[in-house]
Protein backbone atom coordinates (compact mmCIF):
# COMPACT_ATOMS: atom_id res chain seq x y z
CA UNK A 1 0.00 0.00 0.00
CA UNK A 2 2.70 2.43 1.09
CA UNK A 3 5.01 1.48 -1.70
CA UNK A 4 2.39 1.70 -4.40
CA UNK A 5 1.57 5.27 -3.37
CA UNK A 6 5.27 6.13 -3.62
CA UNK A 7 5.56 4.62 -7.07
CA UNK A 8 2.44 6.50 -8.16
CA UNK A 9 3.99 9.70 -6.95
CA UNK A 10 7.25 9.02 -8.72
CA UNK A 11 5.40 8.29 -11.91
CA UNK A 12 3.41 11.47 -11.45
CA UNK A 13 6.58 13.59 -11.17
CA UNK A 14 8.16 11.95 -14.17
CA UNK A 15 5.11 12.40 -16.38
CA UNK A 16 4.59 16.01 -15.35
CA UNK A 17 8.22 16.80 -16.11
CA UNK A 18 7.95 15.03 -19.46
CA UNK A 19 4.86 17.00 -20.42
CA UNK A 20 6.44 20.32 -19.52
CA UNK A 21 9.62 19.36 -21.36
CA UNK A 22 7.71 18.39 -24.51
CA UNK A 23 5.82 21.68 -24.35
CA UNK A 24 8.95 23.77 -24.15
CA UNK A 25 10.69 21.63 -26.74
CA UNK A 26 7.81 22.38 -29.06
CA UNK A 27 8.67 26.07 -29.28
CA UNK A 28 12.27 25.47 -30.38
CA UNK A 29 11.28 25.52 -34.08
CA UNK A 30 10.14 29.13 -33.67
CA UNK A 31 13.51 30.03 -32.21
CA UNK A 32 15.21 28.24 -35.07
CA UNK A 33 12.97 29.99 -37.62
CA UNK A 34 13.66 33.42 -36.20
CA UNK A 35 17.37 32.68 -35.92
CA UNK A 36 17.65 31.44 -39.51
CA UNK A 37 15.55 34.27 -40.90
CA UNK A 38 17.61 36.88 -39.10
CA UNK A 39 20.89 35.24 -40.07
CA UNK A 40 20.16 34.67 -43.75
CA UNK A 41 17.57 37.35 -44.43
CA UNK A 42 19.42 39.86 -42.27
CA UNK A 43 22.48 39.54 -44.46
CA UNK A 44 20.40 40.40 -47.52
CA UNK A 45 18.72 43.36 -45.83
CA UNK A 46 22.02 44.72 -44.54
CA UNK A 47 23.48 44.49 -48.03
CA UNK A 48 20.60 46.22 -49.83
CA UNK A 49 19.15 48.41 -47.10
CA UNK A 50 15.73 49.91 -47.63
CA UNK A 51 16.05 49.46 -51.39
CA UNK A 52 15.01 45.86 -50.75
CA UNK A 53 11.52 47.18 -50.14
CA UNK A 54 11.41 49.54 -53.11
CA UNK A 55 13.33 47.80 -55.94
CA UNK A 56 12.17 45.35 -58.57
CA UNK A 57 13.14 41.66 -58.25
CA UNK A 58 16.34 40.40 -59.88
CA UNK A 59 16.76 38.26 -62.97
CA UNK A 60 17.94 34.70 -62.25
CA UNK A 61 21.59 35.28 -63.04
CA UNK A 62 22.02 38.90 -62.03
CA UNK A 63 24.50 39.60 -59.30
CA UNK A 64 22.37 42.03 -57.34
CA UNK A 65 19.53 40.91 -55.08
CA UNK A 66 17.13 43.60 -56.20
CA UNK A 67 13.96 44.10 -54.15
CA UNK A 68 10.47 42.88 -53.46
CA UNK A 69 8.47 46.03 -54.18
CA UNK A 70 5.82 44.43 -56.47
CA UNK A 71 5.23 41.69 -53.93
CA UNK A 72 4.97 44.07 -51.00
CA UNK A 73 2.52 46.37 -52.76
CA UNK A 74 0.54 43.40 -54.07
CA UNK A 75 0.27 41.82 -50.62
CA UNK A 76 -0.75 45.04 -48.90
CA UNK A 77 -3.45 45.77 -51.48
CA UNK A 78 -4.78 42.27 -52.05
CA UNK A 79 -5.16 41.54 -48.31
CA UNK A 80 -6.85 44.90 -47.80
CA UNK A 81 -9.23 44.24 -50.67
CA UNK A 82 -9.92 40.73 -49.36
CA UNK A 83 -10.93 41.86 -45.89
CA UNK A 84 -12.91 44.71 -47.41
CA UNK A 85 -14.99 42.02 -49.12
CA UNK A 86 -15.24 39.59 -46.20
CA UNK A 87 -15.74 41.96 -43.28
CA UNK A 88 -19.27 43.17 -44.05
CA UNK A 89 -20.40 39.64 -44.97
CA UNK A 90 -18.83 38.04 -41.91
CA UNK A 91 -20.04 40.85 -39.64
CA UNK A 92 -23.67 40.63 -40.70
CA UNK A 93 -23.71 36.84 -40.69
CA UNK A 94 -22.09 36.69 -37.26
CA UNK A 95 -24.52 39.26 -35.86
CA UNK A 96 -27.48 37.44 -37.30
CA UNK A 97 -26.39 34.05 -36.01
CA UNK A 98 -25.72 35.29 -32.47
CA UNK A 99 -29.02 37.18 -32.36
CA UNK A 100 -31.15 34.30 -33.63
CA UNK A 101 -29.19 31.22 -32.58
CA UNK A 102 -32.16 28.89 -32.86
CA UNK A 103 -33.45 29.95 -36.23
CA UNK A 104 -32.98 27.36 -38.96
CA UNK A 105 -31.28 29.90 -41.21
CA UNK A 106 -28.65 30.42 -38.53
CA UNK A 107 -27.87 26.73 -38.59
CA UNK A 108 -27.55 26.85 -42.37
CA UNK A 109 -25.19 29.78 -41.92
CA UNK A 110 -23.02 27.87 -39.47
CA UNK A 111 -22.84 24.81 -41.67
CA UNK A 112 -21.98 26.83 -44.79
CA UNK A 113 -19.20 28.77 -43.11
CA UNK A 114 -17.82 25.60 -41.52
CA UNK A 115 -17.85 23.98 -44.94
CA UNK A 116 -15.88 26.92 -46.30
CA UNK A 117 -13.17 26.40 -43.74
CA UNK A 118 -12.93 22.79 -44.91
CA UNK A 119 -12.26 23.74 -48.53
CA UNK A 120 -8.51 23.43 -49.20
CA UNK A 121 -7.10 26.79 -50.22
CA UNK A 122 -5.46 25.36 -53.31
CA UNK A 123 -8.90 24.24 -54.47
CA UNK A 124 -10.12 27.81 -53.97
CA UNK A 125 -7.23 28.94 -56.11
CA UNK A 126 -8.23 26.51 -58.88
CA UNK A 127 -11.83 27.62 -58.59
CA UNK A 128 -11.02 31.31 -58.98
CA UNK A 129 -8.67 30.38 -61.82
CA UNK A 130 -11.37 28.56 -63.74
CA UNK A 131 -13.99 31.26 -63.16
CA UNK A 132 -12.52 34.73 -62.70
CA UNK A 133 -9.14 34.30 -64.37
CA UNK A 134 -10.52 32.40 -67.35
CA UNK A 135 -13.27 34.91 -67.99
CA UNK A 136 -11.01 37.93 -67.52
CA UNK A 137 -8.30 36.39 -69.62
CA UNK A 138 -5.56 37.23 -67.15
CA UNK A 139 -4.48 36.64 -63.61
CA UNK A 140 -4.95 39.74 -61.53
CA UNK A 141 -4.81 41.39 -58.16
CA UNK A 142 -8.60 41.24 -58.08
CA UNK A 143 -8.65 37.49 -58.69
CA UNK A 144 -6.05 37.03 -55.96
CA UNK A 145 -8.09 39.15 -53.56
CA UNK A 146 -11.23 37.13 -54.25
CA UNK A 147 -9.40 33.89 -53.56
CA UNK A 148 -8.03 35.37 -50.33
CA UNK A 149 -11.51 36.59 -49.41
CA UNK A 150 -13.00 33.10 -49.69
CA UNK A 151 -10.21 31.65 -47.59
CA UNK A 152 -10.42 34.39 -44.94
CA UNK A 153 -14.20 34.45 -44.58
CA UNK A 154 -14.47 31.62 -42.03
CA UNK A 155 -11.72 33.13 -39.86
CA UNK A 156 -13.30 36.56 -39.81
CA UNK A 157 -16.68 34.99 -39.12
CA UNK A 158 -15.36 32.97 -36.18
CA UNK A 159 -13.66 36.04 -34.67
CA UNK A 160 -16.82 38.09 -35.00
CA UNK A 161 -19.19 35.45 -33.64
CA UNK A 162 -17.04 34.88 -30.59
CA UNK A 163 -16.92 38.65 -30.09
CA UNK A 164 -20.71 38.91 -30.23
CA UNK A 165 -21.11 35.91 -27.94
CA UNK A 166 -18.95 37.63 -25.34
CA UNK A 167 -21.49 40.42 -24.82
CA UNK A 168 -22.65 40.05 -21.20
CA UNK A 169 -26.34 39.28 -20.84
CA UNK A 170 -26.70 42.27 -18.53
CA UNK A 171 -25.69 44.74 -21.25
CA UNK A 172 -28.00 43.14 -23.74
CA UNK A 173 -30.80 43.50 -21.19
CA UNK A 174 -29.84 47.11 -20.53
CA UNK A 175 -30.05 47.94 -24.20
CA UNK A 176 -33.35 46.15 -24.67
CA UNK A 177 -34.81 47.64 -21.48
CA UNK A 178 -34.28 51.09 -22.89
CA UNK A 179 -36.34 50.21 -25.93
CA UNK A 180 -33.53 49.74 -28.44
CA UNK A 181 -34.15 47.29 -31.24
CA UNK A 182 -31.42 44.84 -32.24
CA UNK A 183 -29.91 47.04 -34.89
CA UNK A 184 -29.79 50.06 -32.60
CA UNK A 185 -28.31 47.96 -29.83
CA UNK A 186 -25.69 46.81 -32.32
CA UNK A 187 -24.80 50.32 -33.41
CA UNK A 188 -24.93 52.10 -30.05
CA UNK A 189 -23.91 49.42 -27.61
CA UNK A 190 -22.37 46.25 -29.03
CA UNK A 191 -19.99 47.88 -31.50
CA UNK A 192 -18.81 50.28 -28.83
CA UNK A 193 -18.35 47.62 -26.20
CA UNK A 194 -16.68 45.22 -28.62
CA UNK A 195 -14.66 47.71 -30.61
CA UNK A 196 -11.34 46.27 -29.52
CA UNK A 197 -12.23 42.66 -30.14
CA UNK A 198 -13.80 43.50 -33.50
CA UNK A 199 -10.68 45.42 -34.46
CA UNK A 200 -8.57 42.48 -33.37
CA UNK A 201 -10.63 40.19 -35.55
CA UNK A 202 -10.14 42.53 -38.46
CA UNK A 203 -6.42 42.74 -37.87
CA UNK A 204 -6.02 38.98 -37.51
CA UNK A 205 -7.97 38.42 -40.71
CA UNK A 206 -5.68 40.88 -42.47
CA UNK A 207 -2.62 39.08 -41.10
CA UNK A 208 -4.07 35.78 -42.24
CA UNK A 209 -4.67 37.07 -45.75
CA UNK A 210 -1.26 38.69 -45.82
CA UNK A 211 0.58 35.47 -45.05
CA UNK A 212 -1.39 33.08 -47.24
CA UNK A 213 0.22 31.55 -50.31
CA UNK A 214 -1.87 28.77 -51.79
CA UNK A 215 -4.95 30.84 -52.78
CA UNK A 216 -2.69 33.08 -54.83
CA UNK A 217 -0.84 30.39 -56.77
CA UNK A 218 -2.94 30.44 -59.94
CA UNK A 219 -4.79 33.70 -59.43
CA UNK A 220 -2.40 36.51 -58.63
CA UNK A 221 0.17 36.24 -61.43
CA UNK A 222 3.84 36.96 -60.84
CA UNK A 223 4.54 40.60 -61.63
CA UNK A 224 8.24 41.41 -61.78
CA UNK A 225 8.83 44.27 -64.17
CA UNK A 226 6.72 46.91 -62.46
CA UNK A 227 5.76 47.79 -58.90
CA UNK A 228 2.06 47.92 -59.63
CA UNK A 229 0.15 47.44 -62.86
CA UNK A 230 -3.44 47.97 -61.78
CA UNK A 231 -6.10 46.00 -59.94
CA UNK A 232 -7.17 44.11 -63.06
CA UNK A 233 -3.62 43.21 -64.01
CA UNK A 234 -1.07 40.72 -62.75
CA UNK A 235 0.41 41.41 -59.38
CA UNK A 236 2.62 39.65 -56.86
CA UNK A 237 2.69 38.81 -53.16
CA UNK A 238 5.39 38.37 -50.54
CA UNK A 239 4.51 34.77 -49.57
CA UNK A 240 4.04 33.85 -53.21
CA UNK A 241 7.45 35.23 -54.08
CA UNK A 242 9.08 33.35 -51.22
CA UNK A 243 7.41 30.15 -52.35
CA UNK A 244 8.32 30.44 -56.02
CA UNK A 245 11.88 31.54 -55.33
CA UNK A 246 12.43 28.84 -52.73
CA UNK A 247 11.51 26.20 -55.31
CA UNK A 248 13.76 27.73 -57.96
CA UNK A 249 17.32 26.48 -58.44
CA UNK A 250 19.03 29.89 -58.37
CA UNK A 251 21.08 30.87 -55.35
CA UNK A 252 20.28 34.52 -55.96
CA UNK A 253 16.55 33.79 -55.72
CA UNK A 254 17.06 31.89 -52.49
CA UNK A 255 18.67 34.97 -50.97
CA UNK A 256 15.69 37.11 -52.03
CA UNK A 257 13.39 34.49 -50.50
CA UNK A 258 15.17 34.76 -47.17
CA UNK A 259 15.17 38.54 -47.24
CA UNK A 260 11.44 38.48 -48.00
CA UNK A 261 10.90 35.95 -45.22
CA UNK A 262 12.50 38.26 -42.69
CA UNK A 263 10.29 41.12 -43.90
CA UNK A 264 7.17 38.92 -43.71
CA UNK A 265 8.17 37.69 -40.25
CA UNK A 266 8.63 41.24 -38.96
CA UNK A 267 5.29 42.39 -40.38
CA UNK A 268 3.55 39.33 -38.97
CA UNK A 269 5.03 39.63 -35.49
CA UNK A 270 4.27 43.35 -35.38
CA UNK A 271 0.62 42.98 -36.39
CA UNK A 272 0.16 39.96 -34.14
CA UNK A 273 1.55 41.82 -31.14
CA UNK A 274 -0.63 44.86 -31.81
CA UNK A 275 -3.72 42.66 -31.94
CA UNK A 276 -2.78 41.01 -28.64
CA UNK A 277 -2.29 44.37 -26.96
CA UNK A 278 -5.73 45.35 -28.23
CA UNK A 279 -7.29 42.24 -26.72
CA UNK A 280 -5.65 42.90 -23.39
CA UNK A 281 -7.36 46.28 -23.31
CA UNK A 282 -10.82 44.73 -23.51
CA UNK A 283 -12.74 45.64 -20.38
CA UNK A 284 -16.34 44.72 -19.79
Amino acid at each position, binding site marked *: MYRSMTSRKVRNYIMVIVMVAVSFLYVTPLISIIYTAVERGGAVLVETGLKFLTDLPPTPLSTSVGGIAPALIGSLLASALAILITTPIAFLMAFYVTEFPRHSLSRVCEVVVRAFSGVPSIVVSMFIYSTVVMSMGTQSLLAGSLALAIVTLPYTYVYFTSAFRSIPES*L*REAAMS*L*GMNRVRALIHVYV*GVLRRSLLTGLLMSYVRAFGDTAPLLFTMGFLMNAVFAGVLQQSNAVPLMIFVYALSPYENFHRVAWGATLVLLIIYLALFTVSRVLVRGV*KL
Partner: protein
Amino acid sequence: MSLYAVEVEDLHLRIKGVEILRGVTLRVRRNTLFVLMGPSGSGKSTFLRTLNRLIDFVDGVELSGLVKVLGQDIYSVDPYDLRRRVVLVSQEPNPFPHMTIYDNVALPARLNKIVRTKRELDDLVRWALEKVMLWEEVKDRLKSYPHALSGGQRQRLCLARALAAKPEILLLDEPTANIDPVNTIKIEESLKSLRDEVTVIMVTHMPHQAVRVADHVALLHSGVIVEEGPAMEVFMSPKKEVTNEFLRGAL
Protein backbone atom coordinates in the same frame (compact mmCIF):
# COMPACT_ATOMS: atom_id res chain seq x y z
CA MET B 1 -57.14 56.41 -21.47
CA SER B 2 -57.28 53.53 -19.14
CA LEU B 3 -57.21 54.12 -15.44
CA TYR B 4 -54.70 51.36 -15.04
CA ALA B 5 -51.08 51.23 -16.15
CA VAL B 6 -51.04 47.46 -15.99
CA GLU B 7 -53.88 44.95 -16.12
CA VAL B 8 -53.05 41.28 -15.91
CA GLU B 9 -55.62 38.52 -16.03
CA ASP B 10 -54.97 34.89 -15.30
CA LEU B 11 -51.38 34.93 -16.50
CA HIS B 12 -49.79 31.50 -16.71
CA LEU B 13 -46.16 31.20 -17.70
CA ARG B 14 -43.88 28.21 -18.13
CA ILE B 15 -40.20 28.16 -18.96
CA LYS B 16 -39.03 24.89 -20.49
CA GLY B 17 -42.05 23.18 -18.97
CA VAL B 18 -41.56 24.53 -15.45
CA GLU B 19 -44.54 26.54 -14.29
CA ILE B 20 -43.34 29.90 -12.97
CA LEU B 21 -46.58 31.89 -12.85
CA ARG B 22 -49.84 30.04 -12.10
CA GLY B 23 -52.64 32.44 -12.85
CA VAL B 24 -51.63 35.94 -11.81
CA THR B 25 -54.36 38.55 -11.80
CA LEU B 26 -53.31 42.06 -10.92
CA ARG B 27 -54.05 45.71 -11.64
CA VAL B 28 -51.76 48.65 -11.12
CA ARG B 29 -53.17 52.18 -11.16
CA ARG B 30 -51.34 54.92 -12.99
CA ASN B 31 -48.91 57.13 -11.09
CA THR B 32 -48.58 54.95 -8.07
CA LEU B 33 -45.56 53.35 -6.53
CA PHE B 34 -46.45 49.72 -6.62
CA VAL B 35 -44.29 47.18 -4.83
CA LEU B 36 -44.48 43.52 -5.68
CA MET B 37 -43.08 41.54 -2.79
CA GLY B 38 -42.23 37.90 -2.59
CA PRO B 39 -39.57 35.49 -1.43
CA SER B 40 -36.79 34.58 -3.88
CA GLY B 41 -37.95 32.19 -6.54
CA SER B 42 -41.55 33.30 -6.38
CA GLY B 43 -41.54 34.50 -9.98
CA LYS B 44 -41.30 38.26 -9.37
CA SER B 45 -38.52 38.93 -11.87
CA THR B 46 -40.17 36.83 -14.53
CA PHE B 47 -43.42 38.69 -14.00
CA LEU B 48 -41.66 42.03 -14.33
CA ARG B 49 -39.92 40.95 -17.52
CA THR B 50 -43.22 39.88 -18.99
CA LEU B 51 -44.60 43.40 -18.69
CA ASN B 52 -42.15 44.83 -21.24
CA ARG B 53 -41.63 41.56 -23.09
CA LEU B 54 -38.00 41.12 -22.15
CA ILE B 55 -39.19 37.57 -21.57
CA ASP B 56 -39.14 37.19 -25.36
CA PHE B 57 -35.38 36.73 -25.17
CA VAL B 58 -35.70 33.68 -22.93
CA ASP B 59 -35.88 30.32 -24.66
CA GLY B 60 -38.77 27.96 -24.18
CA VAL B 61 -41.36 30.34 -22.76
CA GLU B 62 -45.05 29.39 -22.97
CA LEU B 63 -47.50 32.01 -21.92
CA SER B 64 -51.28 32.29 -21.61
CA GLY B 65 -53.65 34.87 -20.21
CA LEU B 66 -54.12 38.56 -20.89
CA VAL B 67 -51.49 41.21 -20.22
CA LYS B 68 -52.48 44.80 -20.96
CA VAL B 69 -49.96 47.55 -20.45
CA LEU B 70 -50.99 51.19 -20.91
CA GLY B 71 -54.32 49.98 -22.18
CA GLN B 72 -53.04 47.69 -24.93
CA ASP B 73 -52.43 43.97 -25.15
CA ILE B 74 -48.65 43.67 -25.12
CA TYR B 75 -48.73 41.07 -27.87
CA SER B 76 -50.54 43.47 -30.19
CA VAL B 77 -47.83 46.14 -30.12
CA ASP B 78 -44.23 46.31 -31.32
CA PRO B 79 -42.09 45.11 -28.42
CA TYR B 80 -39.38 47.68 -29.04
CA ASP B 81 -41.92 50.50 -28.92
CA LEU B 82 -43.34 48.95 -25.77
CA ARG B 83 -39.93 48.91 -24.10
CA ARG B 84 -39.39 52.53 -24.97
CA ARG B 85 -42.39 53.39 -22.82
CA VAL B 86 -41.90 50.70 -20.19
CA VAL B 87 -38.29 50.82 -19.07
CA LEU B 88 -36.65 48.31 -16.75
CA VAL B 89 -33.78 48.77 -14.32
CA SER B 90 -32.01 45.49 -13.58
CA GLN B 91 -30.82 44.17 -10.26
CA GLU B 92 -27.16 44.35 -11.27
CA PRO B 93 -26.02 47.84 -12.29
CA ASN B 94 -25.34 47.68 -16.02
CA PRO B 95 -24.17 51.04 -17.32
CA PHE B 96 -22.61 50.90 -20.78
CA PRO B 97 -18.89 50.62 -20.08
CA HIS B 98 -17.78 52.24 -23.31
CA MET B 99 -19.77 55.45 -22.79
CA THR B 100 -19.13 58.36 -20.47
CA ILE B 101 -21.47 59.08 -17.58
CA TYR B 102 -23.05 61.86 -19.61
CA ASP B 103 -23.50 59.71 -22.71
CA ASN B 104 -25.03 56.89 -20.70
CA VAL B 105 -27.80 59.16 -19.46
CA ALA B 106 -28.15 60.98 -22.77
CA LEU B 107 -28.34 57.85 -24.93
CA PRO B 108 -32.06 57.03 -24.66
CA ALA B 109 -33.01 60.66 -25.17
CA ARG B 110 -30.83 60.82 -28.25
CA LEU B 111 -32.21 57.57 -29.65
CA ASN B 112 -35.83 58.42 -29.03
CA LYS B 113 -35.39 62.02 -30.15
CA ILE B 114 -36.88 63.32 -26.93
CA VAL B 115 -34.93 66.56 -27.16
CA ARG B 116 -34.00 68.79 -30.03
CA THR B 117 -31.08 70.88 -28.89
CA LYS B 118 -27.85 70.25 -27.02
CA ARG B 119 -29.10 72.63 -24.37
CA GLU B 120 -32.25 70.60 -23.80
CA LEU B 121 -30.19 67.46 -23.64
CA ASP B 122 -27.89 68.98 -21.02
CA ASP B 123 -30.91 69.99 -19.00
CA LEU B 124 -32.45 66.54 -19.29
CA VAL B 125 -29.25 64.83 -18.18
CA ARG B 126 -28.94 67.19 -15.26
CA TRP B 127 -32.59 66.70 -14.31
CA ALA B 128 -32.20 62.91 -14.38
CA LEU B 129 -29.00 62.96 -12.37
CA GLU B 130 -30.54 65.32 -9.83
CA LYS B 131 -33.56 63.07 -9.51
CA VAL B 132 -31.31 60.24 -8.36
CA MET B 133 -29.16 62.59 -6.25
CA LEU B 134 -26.09 61.84 -8.29
CA TRP B 135 -25.60 65.26 -9.86
CA GLU B 136 -23.51 66.74 -7.05
CA GLU B 137 -21.28 63.68 -7.04
CA VAL B 138 -20.55 63.53 -10.76
CA LYS B 139 -21.12 67.01 -12.18
CA ASP B 140 -17.36 67.59 -12.47
CA ARG B 141 -16.65 64.31 -14.19
CA LEU B 142 -19.48 63.79 -16.62
CA LYS B 143 -16.88 62.86 -19.21
CA SER B 144 -15.38 60.04 -17.19
CA TYR B 145 -16.43 56.43 -17.49
CA PRO B 146 -18.80 54.50 -15.20
CA HIS B 147 -16.16 52.10 -13.90
CA ALA B 148 -14.87 55.03 -11.81
CA LEU B 149 -18.12 54.96 -9.81
CA SER B 150 -19.03 52.81 -6.82
CA GLY B 151 -21.63 50.06 -7.20
CA GLY B 152 -24.34 52.18 -5.62
CA GLN B 153 -23.51 55.17 -7.78
CA ARG B 154 -23.59 52.99 -10.85
CA GLN B 155 -27.04 51.73 -9.94
CA ARG B 156 -28.25 55.30 -9.53
CA LEU B 157 -26.69 56.11 -12.89
CA CYS B 158 -28.78 53.32 -14.41
CA LEU B 159 -31.87 54.71 -12.75
CA ALA B 160 -31.06 58.16 -14.15
CA ARG B 161 -30.55 56.65 -17.58
CA ALA B 162 -33.97 55.02 -17.33
CA LEU B 163 -35.57 58.29 -16.24
CA ALA B 164 -34.00 60.18 -19.12
CA ALA B 165 -35.85 57.84 -21.45
CA LYS B 166 -39.03 59.51 -20.11
CA PRO B 167 -40.84 56.23 -19.58
CA GLU B 168 -44.50 55.98 -18.71
CA ILE B 169 -43.83 52.97 -16.53
CA LEU B 170 -40.62 52.28 -14.68
CA LEU B 171 -39.90 48.66 -13.75
CA LEU B 172 -37.37 48.04 -11.01
CA ASP B 173 -36.00 44.57 -10.38
CA GLU B 174 -34.62 44.59 -6.82
CA PRO B 175 -32.65 47.75 -7.56
CA THR B 176 -31.04 47.86 -4.13
CA ALA B 177 -30.29 44.18 -3.63
CA ASN B 178 -26.52 44.53 -3.89
CA ILE B 179 -26.13 48.06 -2.62
CA ASP B 180 -25.04 49.69 0.65
CA PRO B 181 -27.62 51.35 2.95
CA VAL B 182 -26.71 54.95 2.07
CA ASN B 183 -27.22 54.40 -1.64
CA THR B 184 -30.35 52.38 -0.93
CA ILE B 185 -31.89 55.31 0.92
CA LYS B 186 -31.01 57.70 -1.90
CA ILE B 187 -32.66 55.43 -4.43
CA GLU B 188 -35.75 55.08 -2.27
CA GLU B 189 -35.95 58.87 -1.84
CA SER B 190 -35.79 59.44 -5.58
CA LEU B 191 -38.47 56.83 -6.15
CA LYS B 192 -40.81 58.62 -3.76
CA SER B 193 -40.22 61.90 -5.58
CA LEU B 194 -41.23 60.26 -8.87
CA ARG B 195 -44.64 59.24 -7.63
CA ASP B 196 -46.60 61.86 -9.54
CA GLU B 197 -44.72 61.66 -12.83
CA VAL B 198 -44.50 57.99 -13.61
CA THR B 199 -45.90 54.64 -12.60
CA VAL B 200 -43.27 52.70 -10.72
CA ILE B 201 -43.45 48.95 -10.28
CA MET B 202 -40.76 47.62 -8.03
CA VAL B 203 -39.96 44.08 -7.09
CA THR B 204 -38.32 43.28 -3.79
CA HIS B 205 -37.87 40.40 -1.40
CA MET B 206 -37.37 42.72 1.56
CA PRO B 207 -40.60 43.66 3.40
CA HIS B 208 -38.88 46.64 5.05
CA GLN B 209 -38.26 48.31 1.77
CA ALA B 210 -41.88 47.90 0.78
CA VAL B 211 -42.95 49.45 4.06
CA ARG B 212 -40.72 52.46 3.44
CA VAL B 213 -41.79 53.34 -0.09
CA ALA B 214 -44.93 51.62 -1.30
CA ASP B 215 -48.36 53.13 -1.99
CA HIS B 216 -49.75 49.82 -2.97
CA VAL B 217 -48.38 46.33 -2.48
CA ALA B 218 -48.95 42.77 -3.56
CA LEU B 219 -47.41 39.54 -2.40
CA LEU B 220 -46.45 36.98 -4.99
CA HIS B 221 -45.90 33.51 -3.63
CA SER B 222 -45.35 30.29 -5.62
CA GLY B 223 -46.56 31.93 -8.79
CA VAL B 224 -49.84 33.42 -7.54
CA ILE B 225 -50.82 36.75 -5.97
CA VAL B 226 -51.61 35.90 -2.38
CA GLU B 227 -52.66 39.29 -1.19
CA GLU B 228 -52.93 42.75 -2.58
CA GLY B 229 -54.04 46.19 -1.42
CA PRO B 230 -53.05 49.65 -0.22
CA ALA B 231 -49.71 49.41 1.56
CA MET B 232 -51.01 50.52 4.95
CA GLU B 233 -53.84 48.01 5.01
CA VAL B 234 -51.69 45.09 4.03
CA PHE B 235 -48.95 45.89 6.48
CA MET B 236 -51.21 46.71 9.41
CA SER B 237 -53.68 43.90 9.02
CA PRO B 238 -52.72 41.18 6.54
CA LYS B 239 -55.61 38.94 5.66
CA LYS B 240 -53.59 35.84 4.91
CA GLU B 241 -51.32 33.83 7.12
CA VAL B 242 -48.73 33.62 4.32
CA THR B 243 -48.49 37.40 4.21
CA ASN B 244 -48.00 37.51 7.91
CA GLU B 245 -45.19 35.01 7.68
CA PHE B 246 -43.55 36.90 4.88
CA LEU B 247 -43.72 40.19 6.77
CA ARG B 248 -42.18 38.56 9.78
CA GLY B 249 -39.38 37.31 7.58
CA ALA B 250 -40.30 33.67 7.98
CA LEU B 251 -40.52 32.79 4.30
